[in-house]
């Protein structure tokens, strides 16, 4: 119950943290409500896996993990760089609009379209592992549990509490003027990729 309330209470903040990653993707993909729900489910599903890993680690290592330099800098930094690469490649994937970019787009278009489904999966996993204030609270809560099962249950309820805020995002895919929104979403995904790349490099070089 405590975890569910924590999730519900901090869910909006979670939404804001993951927004820059998932919102451009949903806008760019557009599509039906069903497709958007599927994308969000993939995002949340992989985030859930990340949480379960964290639950196990929390119960094995206690609260100290988040304070270790390795986790804060290297792992999170590397995760950001993987995410940024995914977003940048996605932004160039099958663009028909910009002549110069089409060259790269053509190379990428040999990759099956299904590939784009991995964007929410990677994004969900990486954002699930990255440190944000709600996750820090959840981690502390899970670390205080006696067993791995309790810790996992704690994270499960935290996940459920935060997830309810994500599903309304599915309606973003239904916006009018699909072509324009698709373009803006793709550009935003690429720019978000650049931002996460810089963040990742800064973290790894332990600047921030």
């Amino acid at each position, binding site marked *: 119950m405590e975890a569910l309330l924590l999730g519900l209470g901090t869910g909006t903040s979670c939404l804001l943290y993951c927004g*820059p990653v998932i919102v451009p993707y949903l806008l760019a993909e557009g599509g039906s409500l069903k497709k958007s729900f599927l994308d969000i489910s993939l995002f949340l599903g992989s985030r859930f896996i990340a949480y379960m890993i964290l639950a196990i680690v929390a119960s094995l290592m206690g609260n100290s993990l988040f304070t270790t330099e390795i986790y804060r800098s290297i792992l999170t930094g590397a995760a950001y760089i993987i995410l940024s690469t995914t977003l940048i490649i996605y932004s160039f994937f099958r663009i028909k609009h910009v002549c110069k970019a089409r060259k790269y787009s053509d190379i990428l278009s040999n990759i099956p379209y299904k590939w784009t489904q991995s964007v929410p999966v990677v994004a969900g996993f990486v954002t699930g592992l990255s440190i944000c204030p709600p996750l820090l609270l959840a981690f502390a809560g899970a670390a205080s549990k006696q067993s791995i099962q309790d810790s996992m249950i704690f994270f499960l309820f935290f996940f459920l509490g935060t997830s309810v805020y994500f599903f309304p995002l599915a309606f973003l895919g239904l916006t009018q003027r699909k072509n324009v929104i698709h373009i*803006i979403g793709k550009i935003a995904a690429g720019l978000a990729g650049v931002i996460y790349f810089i963040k990742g490099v*800064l973290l790894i070089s332990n600047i921030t």
Partner: protein
Amino acid sequence: MKSDKVKLPPYTTAGKFWKSLLICLPMIFITFFFLTGGEPDFSDTTNSIAFILVFLFLNFLFFKIIYTGKTDKFRATGFILFAVFLSLVFITNMVETREGMSFSSADLLECNIPFCHIVITMILIPIVFTNSIIFPGSILDGFAPVSTMLILWILASIALGKGFCSWGCFYGGWDDGFSRIRKKPLVKNINTIFRWFPFAVLLLVALSAAMTLTPTYCEWACPFKTVTEFEAVTSTETLIKTIIFLLLFLGLVIVLPILTKKRIQCGMFCPMGALTSFTNKVNPFDVRIDKEKCKDCGICEIKCPILSLDPTSIEKGKTHFVCSKCGKCIDACPNQAIHYHIKGTPVNKRNTTARTLFVFSGFLFLAIFSGGTFQMGIIRIINILTTGSFF
């Protein structure tokens, strides 16, 4: 049905000296009031010289806009000089009060950072979610307080729509100026997809500011930090930020505008430009094309500095909703087919009233925003010439 030879109607008050002067009278009174603060005091020579020069300069520009029927050249003269003078005054202010262009962590903590209108793109979501303004500037007092800037921006948006970006913005004059340096562009046919870039930047800036509760664009991506103020370089992170500011200014404000003759920063990057585009929807003025007169020559499309015209929009007789109402296309059209227009009135008619009302509103904002800055700049220039010091 297009006729081969179009008889050009007299536009506005072009060539009519006394009528133009009469139209300029309200501007003359208003600028006098604003520049003197309602209390004329000519006891100080330097201040008086600054006042007279600025008063004459602003009213000369407005008179030329009315008298010649040409908008862009005179608007741009005031707009570009405003940007340059703002940086001059800002930097010299910083040197006077903080002995340099950088601010310290103490200034941040004490909320001593002047508020700039671009920050509006970042404060809206946090205001809704947290009821707080995520900017280290003062709300009510000091130099450029948050409340004054918000009110001015709202007023300018209602009156001008995105015209704010060509008549009121403090920085737009920089890339407007650099985009005019070459006679012909070296890079042509820029894809209109780039007009959507600012909207993507806006989306990210708004989300990331909401996520971190910090003005992320100001901290990481504002090219104009280069010509105003920036965080003191005390760490590798601040060094990287400073390098980003310099590179963005060099690329988006200087090099690309020179090469393309487009306002790259304003039309293809600035999140404030994107946000302000939406105000074009509620603003009474727009720019329309008279399809009877248009010969589809495409000159307006080439001239538009922010990709607001393309064959589709010309075909529809409208500018795109990102139009900043600069008037460049209106002046350039050889067939006088483009005109300022008041929504809801007939389109196929060059409407003198619509133009006069719009250029009056636009120029009024330019004069009010820039007047004090011009005066202060001139005082600083006189000081440096006569005493060797700005102060």
